[in-house]
């Protein structure tokens, strides 16, 4: 007797349909599993057998052959437990199988028959939708995530025994719909108004957010760099529908809970369904290349750059990251995605994030401080600044100066809501960019020809750019014009005027070790 259960294998963020074919026939009792399974899939045999017995079914003492088709596709992970178990029970006619052809099934089994949550359920649901299946069966704690894909009948189960009486009823809302617009309240990431003073830093971050520019914050320890960076997702425009799905998919694949912007523990999915906030990721400076860009030898998972997709990648102590790790950032910064090649597969993950790097001004952190004298020697400064230079820094357009606020300002500070107003301005500036550039292309991503076409310098502004040209590289010149364009967009101006260029110059990245630039 043959039974077929639909399931999914993931490559990167894409789900590919997999047919779990189970044949229970006569012969010497045996249980074979074929179809390019990895270790976790192969171990399903033990879990499935134990779970079937523990759930009150009977283990068929016959010859059982399970094939995962297509056989050429590598299958990974533990979520084939449930489809295999259901296939065996259906082939042995122990459960009702009318619903099986119309559902996609994933879930890990415990030895006691419990159905346990797995990572990546959203891509299962999306795959089911694209295959035209009306429903999915998923572990109950993943059902919200599956619901987020929309227009699917999502059946959450928590025990294998539930299938004895046919397909369990979906709890509550039977037909799922897309979650209503995420609330704009970004209580999770805090409000810019909670930061006392720092007007220049806030303005620089507003410009960076409006143009999608990568930025580097420089300020002494304790000046509030992390506090400011955490509030950047709150001034970026709300996620659109596509972005929400992609972001949720990546988080689902990485097993990082969706919904909460700072990432709940793996496997635990919140009740939010789709991610509603822009992600904020802050990898520690000891992070490896794999942790940052993603990887893994057989099971390829997204790294921090992809988890920060459409959000903010905050890299504190930027100069302390290993040079090889920083080099690995160049591809995602350039292309907006990472491609990872391994023996098992070659996958691409989207990684279009806004880089917010932070650094102390010098090794001791107090260069130029009004509170404490800098204790490093001159060579240490040069070495430190050299670490913060090179091709990666060329891709950072804006330097955010973070000063130290006077104590009385911090103490007397009344938190006010600022993020919402900033976001309104940022959204307006971005829509001007979309309108002018013809598609959703932020100023930071304009290439040479597009920049020339869209920058719209007035005569005086062009003269100002020329005046600055002597002091910067050609890439620096391009980023000066892009930032000037963004500042003009924020002010709602069609043309870039000279004062926009001057402001952009003030927000530029500092250049190498400061020796006297010219003699008088």
């Amino acid at each position, binding site marked *: 007797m043959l039974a077929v259960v639909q399931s999914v294998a993931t490559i990167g963020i894409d789900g590919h349909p997999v047919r779990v074919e189970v044949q229970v026939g006569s012969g010497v009792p045996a249980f074979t599993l074929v179809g390019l399974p990895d270790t976790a899939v192969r171990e399903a045999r033990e879990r499935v057998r134990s779970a079937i017995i523990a759930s009150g079914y009977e283990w068929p003492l016959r010859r059982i052959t399970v094939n995962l088709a297509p056989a050429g596709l590598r299958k990974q992970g533990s979520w084939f437990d449930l489809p295999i178990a259901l296939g065996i029970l259906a082939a042995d006619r122990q459960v009702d199988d009318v619903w099986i052809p119309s559902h996609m099934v994933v879930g890990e089994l415990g030895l006691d028959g419990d159905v346990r949550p797995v990572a990546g359920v959203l891509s299962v649901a999306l795959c089911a939708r694209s295959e035209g299946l009306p429903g999915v069966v998923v572990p109950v704690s993943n059902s919200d995530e599956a619901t987020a894909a929309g227009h699917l009948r999502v059946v959450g189960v928590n025990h294998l025994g539930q299938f004895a009486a046919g397909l369990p009823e979906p709890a509550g809302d039977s037909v799922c719909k897309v979650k209503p617009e995420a609330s704009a309240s970004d209580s999770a990431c805090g409000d810019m108004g909670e930061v006392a003073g720092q007007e*220049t830093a806030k303005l620089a971050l507003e410009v960076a957010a409006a143009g999608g520019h990568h930025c580097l914050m420089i300020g002494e320890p304790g000046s509030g760099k992390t506090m400011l960076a955490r509030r950047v997702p709150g001034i970026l425009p709300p996620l659109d529908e596509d972005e929400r799905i992609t972001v949720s998919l990546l988080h689902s694949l990485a097993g990082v809970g969706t919904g909460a912007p700072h990432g709940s523990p793996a496997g635990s999915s919140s009740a939010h369904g789709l991610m509603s906030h822009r992600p904020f990721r802050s990898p520690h400076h000891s992070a490896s290349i794999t942790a940052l860009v993603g990887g893994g030898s057989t099971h390829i998972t997204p790294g921090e750059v992809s988890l920060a997709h459409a959000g903010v990648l905050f890299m504190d102590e930027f100069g302390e990251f290993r040079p090889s790790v920083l080099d690995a950032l160049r591809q995602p910064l350039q292309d907006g995605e990472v491609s990872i090649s391994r023996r098992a597969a070659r996958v691409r993950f989207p990684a279009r994030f806004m880089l917010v790097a932070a650094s102390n001004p010098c090794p001791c952190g107090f260069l130029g401080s*009004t509170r404490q004298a800098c204790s490093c*020697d001159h060579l240490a400064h040069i070495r430190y600044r050299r670490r913060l230079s090179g091709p990666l820094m060329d891709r950072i357009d804006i330097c955010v100066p973070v000063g130290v606020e006077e104590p009385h300002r911090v103490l007397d500070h009344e938190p006010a809501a600022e993020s919402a107003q900033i976001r309104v301005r940022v959204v307006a500036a971005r829509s001007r960019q979309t309108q002018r550039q013809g598609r959703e292309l932020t100023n930071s991503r304009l290439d040479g020809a597009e920049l020339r076409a869209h920058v719209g310098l007035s005569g005086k502004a062009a003269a100002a750019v020329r005046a600055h040209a002597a002091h910067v590289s050609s890439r620096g010149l391009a980023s000066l014009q892009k930032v000037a364009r963004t*500042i003009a967009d924020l002010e709602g101006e069609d043309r870039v005027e000279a*004062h926009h260029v*001057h402001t952009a*110059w003030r927000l530029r990245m500092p250049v190498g070790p400061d020796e006297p630039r010219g003699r008088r």
Partner: protein
Amino acid sequence: MNDRQPAPSPETRALWLAIGGLPHMGLTAIGELARRWPDPFEALARIRSAGDDLKGIVPLSKRWEVSSGAQRIDDARTAACILAELDRCGGRLVATAEPPLSELLAAEEGWPPVVSARGGLPAPPTVAIVGMRKASLPGRRFASRLAADLAAEGVCVVSGLAFGIDRASHEGAVAAGRTVAVLAGGVARPSPLAHIALAGEVLRSEGGLVSHVPPLSDAPGWRFPIRNRLIAGLAQAVVVVEAAARGGSLSTAAHAVRLGRPLLAVPGPPWWEHSSGTNSLLADGALVCRDALDVLAAIGRAPTGRPVSRDRPHSLPAVEALDDDELAVLDAVPATPEPIDSVARESQLPLVTVLSALGRLEQLGLVEAPTPSTVMRTDCP
């Protein structure tokens, strides 16, 4: 020096450099060795034996280290090496007891009998300009201008080729006249490495490099205070432009006082770390250095040739081109680093206007950003 040999061979004289290169060997110690044992072979033998006859020259605690360093010197071969290296880099041995050095280094002050040099030698009038490595931009500008003014007056500017004020002084002087760099390492290997090009410029402008150690020596940290004494000795007056509360330039200043050379210091605001050292020198009786005129007065020379004007007008050619907002912002920027936020509050203009004005002022060179979050005026007071 009264014990001078009638015609010491170059090999013999080269050995004094080898002795100079021994660990913790000070200039006065070499001078005293040369006074007691005019033959360096004899002096080396005494150092190797580390006996009590080194009393008053090498302290007991350092005697073992110095003597084991001397064990490694193979007299004839070391001397030949030193001469060969000097030859290769175009350097030479110079006796301190002969002009022009004898006009600067008095014999009774205790100097090594021989130093090495490349290019020109310092000759009166000389002035040393020293200061912090981590100097501020206005400090470096001031040093550079002071050095240029003095060099134009025919003064030989002596400094140490280090980062910061030293570099600025050499740069200012090479454009207008002569300058001499006194090195803590050898003359064939000017340190720091980053300033090799600068050393080349110094040589091209008929300036020179001077050192009391073998030509290929490196520059260990302990040798800088020793080198500073040579700077003070070769100068008829020492000017400290910027100095923190502690640091190398204060050691040069102390040597100048001990050697009886006039000491000048550039005053600065009391709330600024860059002027804490110079201000305390002034409080202790150093002369005020406002410009080249003060320095020329200290070495007893009247300005000649190109007039050096004390009331030089502030060279702000760009001021007329500024609009009202930019002028208001310029007024709000102080002469020492100030956070941008507080400049914006001071000027009472919108932040965007302030940033744009600062960008313009930076472009015109009227304002500098020593760190990303601070700005300061660049025009020298």
